[in-house]
């Protein structure tokens, strides 16, 4: 590959700066630049339990309309994608993606013994544990552990947020959360922190204090690295001025910089629509649709859409029947979107939910989300999924 002069200098100066960080830190070497074709995954968490049945609407299903006399989305309102399914009217960009073969929809994703509390179910999705296990590490954190053994580069997984999710916390390595590269750079560039960080010269990292210094100095050097990378090829794409729009804009600029990041994590919410679901879901979907639409357009223009996989998930779906407040209560299985120019399987990937076969009013899951994780880890990121998930899961075919 041809390295531009500016990038070469960038890498060079970072390598020099690394002499100032403690010994146990193997700072950024030439490895920081990743060859094109570098696969990246963007995870979009729909917090609060998105209503999947009003996302991918079973437009030919009488049970659906009977269970949702007021909330059901009529067939002629939905964006038709197949004979039996339509998308929520706000999801125009997703329909476009469906039409050009870059959208996959997986129905009935869940897990055995579903939990209907937000935090517990989100915990299960984040850790990829069984529902009666309590794990303290996230699946992407363990990906970092496996991937990054000894490399001390938390920039391999970034969350665009102020607070880091459990999903990105590994045993030894944790991802990094940032709202925007410049702000992170600003905070961590305070002289006092810089100076303190330089002081520590522990050779071992067995003591808690070493762990703290290690985290601190990783944060500071990552902040530099991310900030500098983010300014290499800032995107020129137009993004909506929403939170998600800004986040995806940050992500695309980082993707173009060939930073070593493999995983980006971002959340949108709250989809906890117990009351007046229609309005709330539509507003959030509009934010999602416009931001994701801009992101896809931007990636295509820069020829990177084939290397980026964006997928959505929510901690659970909602009950089939609407409640008395024009909302829906917590449910179980749900659908997931996969967006990429590099999908091997497109369109609706499996059967629509069977509304005649429910478990006390809730959908039965047909696909364990851990099969999705293992597919993404192995087929997309080339990682050791079995080691990360602690168990062998069959792969799906979408990538």
């Amino acid at each position: 590959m041809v390295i531009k002069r500016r990038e070469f200098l960038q890498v060079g100066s970072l390598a020099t700066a690394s002499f100032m960080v403690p010994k146990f830190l193997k700072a950024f070497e030439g490895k920081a630049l990743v060859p094109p074709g570098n696969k990246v995954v963007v995870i979009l968490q729909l917090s609060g339990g998105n209503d999947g049945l009003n996302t991918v609407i079973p437009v030919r299903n009488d049970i659906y309309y009977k269970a949702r006399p007021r909330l059901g989305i009529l067939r002629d309102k939905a964006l038709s994608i197949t004979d039996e399914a339509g998308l929520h009217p706000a999801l125009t960009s997703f329909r476009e993606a469906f039409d050009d073969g870059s959208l996959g929809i997986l129905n009935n994703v869940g897990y055995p013994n579903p939990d209907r509390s937000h935090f517990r179910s989100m915990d299960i999705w984040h850790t990829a544990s069984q529902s009666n296990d309590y794990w303290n590490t996230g699946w992407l954190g363990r990906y970092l552990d496996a991937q990054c053994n000894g490399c001390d580069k938390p920039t391999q997984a970034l969350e665009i947020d102020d607070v880091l999710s459990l999903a990105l916390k590994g045993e030894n390595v944790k991802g990094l959360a940032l709202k925007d590269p410049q702000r992170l750079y600003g905070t961590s560039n305070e002289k006092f922190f810089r100076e303190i960080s330089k002081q520590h010269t522990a050779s071992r990292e067995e003591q808690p204090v070493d762990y703290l210094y290690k985290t601190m100095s990783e944060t500071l050097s990552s902040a530099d690295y991310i900030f500098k990378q983010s300014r290499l090829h800032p995107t020129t794409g137009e993004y909506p001025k929403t939170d998600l729009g800004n986040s995806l804009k940050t992500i695309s600029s980082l993707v173009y910089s060939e930073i070593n990041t493999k995983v980006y994590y971002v959340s949108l919410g709250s989809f906890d629509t117990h009351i007046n679901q229609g309005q709330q879901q539509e507003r959030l979907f509009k934010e999602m649709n416009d931001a994701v639409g801009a992101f896809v357009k931007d990636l295509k223009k820069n020829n990177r859409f084939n290397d980026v996989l964006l997928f959505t998930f929510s901690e659970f779906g909602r009950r089939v029947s609407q409640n008395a407040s024009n909302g829906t209560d917590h449910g179980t299985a749900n659908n997931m979107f996969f967006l990429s120019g590099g999908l091997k399987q497109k369109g609706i990937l499996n059967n629509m939910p069977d509304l005649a076969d429910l478990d006390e009013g809730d959908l039965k899951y047909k696909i364990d989300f851990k099969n999705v994780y293992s597919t993404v880890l192995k087929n997309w990121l080339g990682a050791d999924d079995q080691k990360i998930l602690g168990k062998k899961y069959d792969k799906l075919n979408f990538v």
Partner: protein
Amino acid sequence: MLSNQIKNQHLMWRAGFGPAADQLDQLKNTTPNQLYQALQKESGKKPAYMDVADNYLKGLYMGAEEIGRQGKKKELDAEERKMIRNKQRDGIKNLNLLWLSQMVESKAQLREKMAFFWHGHFASRNINIFFQQQLLDIIRVNALGSFKDLLHDVSKSAAILNFLNASQNKKDHPNENFAREVMELFTMGRGNYTETDIKEAARAFTGWSANIKGEFIFRRFQHDDGAKTVLGNTGKFEGEDILNLLLEEKQTAIFITQKIYKFFVNETIDKQKVEWLANRFYKNDYHIEKLMDDIFTADWFYDEKNIGMKIKSPIELLAGMQRMLPMKLDNEESLLLMQRILGQLLFYPPNVAGWPGGKTWIDSSSLMMRMRIPQLINDNDELNVRPKIDDDQMGGRTDDEDMTANVDKKKRGYGKVGKPINADVNWEVYTKNFESVPRENLLAALQSHLLQVKANYKGDIIKNSADNSGRENFIKSATIQIMSTPEYQLC
């Protein structure tokens, strides 16, 4: 040889929420044993019930019976239900702040610290303020008493029964959740019983429930009164019998002692010490205070390898800071916001296993946030960091004044983002401890009270970035700087 001062500070951090500004003198002039006895004495009294519940809610919940008797069960409309939910949420916020203020101010440090441990051990989430108040009272009252009583009372509390789906545990449809967690998390720990033990124990707990007022209810007709076999014992066991069987297992004493050792002494377990402690705990009939005596009066507790080895939990950090720098906060909600951002909001444990603690507190963002807090408090800056959405707290609604989750994110959730902290620090109580310290020794004196580990950084960094325009200003600014170091995260 470690000084009494450092040992006493160690004791204050572990058996309480850190040394307080007005006791620094005492910490130099007493032995750890004397200090522990004083702590014990202060914690001897039965604590007062913490009641923050709104009168409207009290009328509604506690008067539920009367309404029922009058035969007109009140139908609540959507507006009222929303108001109730908000009042419940406010109640839990107020309970949080009230308990946190006790951790800071109460003389009964040992009791509050012990209760804080049990709060994580018997973890539950409930939006019902009465259930929360009741459970908190149970653990505060029994914090240093008998673990047997504590286990029985907690297991019959509405908060735990409700949280662990006990009311769905019926003769014909047993729900194993409660029985499983009692064994796995409350008593023996994983790997010491079989799935059959859980199934059989769940049968014994059928019929256990609580009413809306939080009282324990035994629903006889949902109870399975047949014979059960649990841990090799067969009989027509009731729920209480199962708890007693679990207490008879020495493994329960071992499991609890291990957890206490990790929490109060060192994350790394010393097998021999734990075995010795657990034996005595079991022999002493699960007397918690005696176990704590064994720990806090042991020489090894004050070994260098146990001092400064624990990463403070967010609550310990926040309470500890306020004990050292007594302050009045205009915007108390910022304390809730900090708890959320740092990952430990009282009454909202991450799951039924409680907060995992240790290194899990620390990632890039949480560490940088921790180190910025002293500065934010000192400058009365805005907390411009936004915590994550938690729908168990906020229910996804957008129309309440402080949970407009999507419309105006500045106002979202617990504590308002973007509002200044407005702390009024009473520096005098603190600075007067250093009146007689010569200027050249000031930094060392400050560090000796603020840090439990040796500083890795050079003192010059503090000196250079501190305000050198006078003695007072130096003490204040150097203190803020020292609190902004990695070392201060440890106790």
